[in-house]
């Protein structure tokens, strides 16, 4: 694949629940290797946009393109083969509560590869050690803290070495230090897996720390107000005032906030 061509393109996307329109006319592209942030206030439809992109819910109108494939026009087998290349970290972790961590991480491997059980076991241990959970193989999700569950879910998301990593509010419910460690982990994983990362968040510190591209959804105008590198958006004069308010936590001072 040509590395300069966008890997994901969203065109004229409209999101709606029944007659209630959440967002309309969303247009943006995500390039290979981007860390793309979907940002915006609470309830503006960030997570719904993610669900449209990972094939859980068809959009009311418009299209999502993976390379040159119009995702929602594909047959369900072709959709499945695209989604198989994606790892998703859900807001609540969504680890399967009836299985141990090892079984959670192993399930996609057992399902999609013909690897020997002992190879899978080694892969599982390795993925868990990548997220700092070596030795927790036989624990059940309920026995872990919130931060550990997030990391375990991350290990499951990267089980199949995905091309795309989707994160839904990865730092929700984490303390600032755990949240920063998670950011570091995301950066390292992108480097080592050469994956494209798409993150839904409103955590400004992580936005500045890791984002290379972004889209800003606004719930009042029901459409996107900006797309681009958030640090550039912060400096540009042409940036919409609402976006600026968000990026400066309402202070209007154009400086990068860090933890």
């Amino acid at each position, binding site marked *: 694949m040509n590395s300069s061509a966008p890997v994901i393109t969203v065109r004229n996307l409209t999101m709606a629940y029944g*007659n*209630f329109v959440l967002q309309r006319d969303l247009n943006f592209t995500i390039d290979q290797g981007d860390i793309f942030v979907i940002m915006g206030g609470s309830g503006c439809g960030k997570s719904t946009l993610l*669900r449209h992109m*990972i*094939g*859980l819910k068809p959009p009311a109108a418009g299209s999502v393109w993976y390379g040159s494939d119009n995702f929602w026009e594909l047959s369900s087998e072709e959709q*499945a*083969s695209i*989604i*198989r290349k*994606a790892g*998703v970290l*859900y*807001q*609540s*972790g*969504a*680890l*399967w*509560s*009836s299985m141990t961590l090892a079984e959670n991480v192993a*399930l*996609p491997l057992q*399902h*999609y590869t013909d690897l020997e059980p002992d190879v899978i076991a080694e892969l599982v241990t390795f993925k868990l050690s990548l997220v700092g959970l070596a030795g927790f193989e036989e624990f059940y999700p309920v026995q872990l803290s919130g931060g550990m569950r997030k990391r375990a879910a991350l290990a*499951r998301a990267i089980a*199949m070495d995905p091309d795309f990593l989707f994160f839904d509010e990865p730092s929700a419910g984490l303390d600032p230090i755990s949240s920063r460690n998670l950011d570091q982990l995301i950066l390292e994983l992108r480097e080592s897996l050469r994956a494209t990362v798409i993150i839904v968040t409103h955590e400004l510190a992580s936005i500045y720390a890791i984002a290379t591209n972004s889209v800003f959804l606004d719930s*009042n105008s029901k459409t996107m107000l900006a797309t681009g590198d958030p640090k550039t958006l912060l400096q540009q004069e042409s940036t919409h005032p609402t976006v600026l308010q968000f990026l400066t936590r309402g202070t209007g001072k154009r400086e990068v906030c860090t933890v």
Partner: protein
Amino acid sequence: MTRQARYTLEYPHQGTLIIRFAGTWTLHSNIPSSQELSSHIGQDINSIAFACDELEKWDTRLLIFLKTTLTRAYKHNIRVDEDGLPPGVRRLLTLSKAVPEQTASSRPATDNLVTRVGRSTLQAGSQLREIATFTGEILLALLGLLQGKVSFKPRDFFYFVQVCGVESLPIVSLIAVLVGVILSFVGAVQLQMFGAQIYVANLVGLGMVLEMGALMSGVIIAGRIGASYAAQLGTMQVNEEIDALRTMGISPVGFLVLPRMLALMLMLPLLCVYADIMGILGGSIIGVTMLDLSLIEYLEQTRKTIQLSQFGQGILKASVFGILIGFAGCLRGMQCGRSALAVGEATTSAVVTSIVLIVVSDSFITYLLYR
């Protein structure tokens, strides 16, 4: 000692009103009615000021009182001078005005009757489509299983078999024995009048084998297992666990629904046979202790009455019930919304749906067999 909340009105010049607050104005104190004060604010006043030098303590109770007064003052275009109020009160008043009103445009207007009827009709249609899709997915998963593709963990399946089978035995025993006892009581009263007590064995035997064994184990399993399936799947829906399966390309129906349904389809006929036997034993207890029959006599009479095909009838019913309970429980669980309330509704609805389906299908099968 705190003093009673009160206010006095002063008119220093024509058209000017000074409201002087005194005492304790808190949620726990007795506050004068703001209605009375409002009646003093009318056309003849053009400016209002406040004096609070005798005010001892205040909280939001004072603010509520002030709000009413201020609203009335603004309505009559009276100038209000807030300088006399304590700084804290002024800040809170400003804050309460600063919060922008939610834009009402995003909320749809309440629909009229025609729209609502139309929407419910469409919803009913999409419900049917959902049920059809779900049935199709189950059949596909089953077909895959027959071709040797196991889409679930065998361990899960055996776990469900254990919960649904072995662990249901105590409650099924109790209920089946008692149903046998009840049947034989009901029969005994009538049959004793003709001296035909021995036919109690026929009544209990046929009643259990043809009807009550399957029906009772079905109802027990609907409550025990159908409800728990709906709750398990519903909770997994809330935790996004089902989404996580979908995005990994693992069919939730094959992975979660199929082992549950198979366990039920396998165990309910077995439970039914067990319930039949327990019911006959229950009946024999009454026969032996109250009707002066010997146990051998009773069991021999039962053996003569019941044919294997009649056992088969009960087992057929139980198999159908097993499919229906598993279907209703799993369907409601998979349809569950994303809240604790929705899980509760899914559970209730699973039990109600199962029991309705059991009774309806029971009458249907009985009709077909005796037509």
